[in-house]
């Protein structure tokens, strides 16, 4: 099997149609034990969310989020076998619009709120790999 680039982590493990590392799959079953988010995990999540946290915040969040997740762990006790997940409570299906063209903003309006702009474009520091 050649892996889909979108699912490249698939080469590791597939569980219920999603792909995990072996460690992650173990985690799913490990939720039985008290939940603890280490400061290291907090830093990783913050990096993923592109959030600078100072050390005090890392320590505080590790404690607070662990307490929350530990409480949320009770959900695992609920029997939800064969229960369809609810992504939306709406009975709606097939809400589509006709391919009709409306107005665009003017380039001036587009950049009106920009922190930095040049030639009607948004300016950012050159993107380098993180």
């Amino acid at each position, binding site marked *: 099997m050649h892996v889909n680039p979108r699912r490249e982590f698939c080469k590791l493990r597939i569980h219920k149609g999603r792909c995990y590392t072996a460690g992650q799959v173990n985690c799913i079953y490990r939720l039985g034990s008290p939940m603890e988010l280490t400061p290291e995990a907090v830093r990783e999540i913050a990096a993923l969310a592109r959030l600078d946290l100072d050390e005090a915040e890392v320590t505080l969040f590790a404690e*607070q989020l662990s307490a929350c997740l530990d409480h949320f762990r009770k959900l695992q006790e609920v029997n*939800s076998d064969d229960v369809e*997940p609810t992504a939306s409570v709406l009975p*709606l299906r097939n809400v589509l619009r006709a391919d009709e063209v409306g107005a665009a903003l003017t380039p001036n309006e587009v950049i009106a*709120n920009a922190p930095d702009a040049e030639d009607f474009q948004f300016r*950012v520091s050159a993107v380098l790999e993180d």
Partner: protein
Amino acid sequence: MDDLADVTFLGTGDTLKLLREGQLSAVELTQAYLERSEAMDPQLRAWLSFTPELALAAAERADQAYRDGTAGPLAGIPLGIKDVFSTRGIETTCGSNILRGYRPPFSATVVERLEAAGAVFPGKLNMDEFAMGSTTANSGYFPTHNPWDLARVPGGSSGGSAAAVAAGMVAGALGSDTGGSIRQPGAFCGIPALKPSYGRCSRHGLIAFGSSLDCPGPMARSVEDLARLLQVIAGHDPRDATSLPAEVPDYLAALTGDIRGLKVGIPEAYFGEGLQPEVERAVRAAIAQLEELGAELRPVDLPHSEHSVATYYIIAPAEASANLARYDGVRYGQRVEREGMWPTWRATRGEGFGAEVKRRIMIGTYVLSAGYYDAWYGKAQAVRTLIKRDFDEAFREVDLIAAPTTPTTAFRLGENSDDPLQMYLQDIFTLPPSLAGIVGLNLPCGFDDQGLPIGFQLIAPSLGEALALRVGHAYEQATDWQRRPPLHA
């Protein structure tokens, strides 16, 4: 009118009558509200941005419309807009520093509809940052105070709206409710406040927090006023694919005063441990009042409601973590400049967001990560199905459900602020209807020993707004809990 001081506490129906009859001009009315704001707001701090000149200009247009006979259903009525709603050309921050100075080039559908109905907007009301919180102390700017006790919070996230309405600074306000943000501040400030069904009011222009939960809704000083506001803002919007294409009934006509024979469900489990005794007494008394008015009481079981805190605090932060990814300092809002794009990006978000917002982004990012999705997000979605199913089953037996809105009355500013989990647990009664996407109406039903308002909640099925308002109106007519806070200008 001679006594302008009191027009600010008139019911909208009476005010509209005076305006139509020319006994009061919209400009006079607006000035009265502006004066009251100027007197009250230094203590309450409800306004995030205050635009009296725009309000007066709108009032003049309303007066002209009365003269021309083209006045809309809310012409000249001053209403507050929670800062979660986009307002064309007017600063819209969602209570966050990251959006300081942002002026949207468009208005939210619900704002447009109120504007088209002739409403007058004196400004934008304070809120917890990105609608995350139940105190309005999470505002990125300043906390708002409870008009019943300035040392206490007005609730949140629509705390600015609740305080302003309760204090007579506006005739009514727009709020938004994701997990209780309309109903809980309504209860804390002693005003009727309605979370409509998910999809009843367009979310276009409502700055997203939890997209599958967010509901715009009205807050006012009477059920009748809620009906007038809902009449204008409800209805399908093609710009929101999740807006329900259902007819909007005549909500005023639904206020018949007659609730005889209606079956009201009582979820006994909601009256358990942790409920402040005065709250329990007041809510039970309200339920007894409903029975006296001719409703039949039935016990109902909502067994999965106990899981609503965990379910909600996984789903809403997950959606929020994506919804708030757009605040990067590139296209709008504030940027915190650092050497290089990614450091700038992280600093912009790290400094632009407050602690509660960052906590929820962290939870949401974590529960959506590949390895944890099924255990947290997937599980929460399944339990959401069970919570919704409980209500579906209950509504086969009863027409609506009565329950407390909050476990306690308003807390002190600063209370629980270092314990987010304790704070989240306070949302236990407002979360289940949010997760089920159904109607929740807060109604004032008494005061505790310290004179703080108590609210109870009528829960109705999806699109059951008219029913909830009808029962709420009958209850309001039979009781006397809608009082003016002890504030002196």
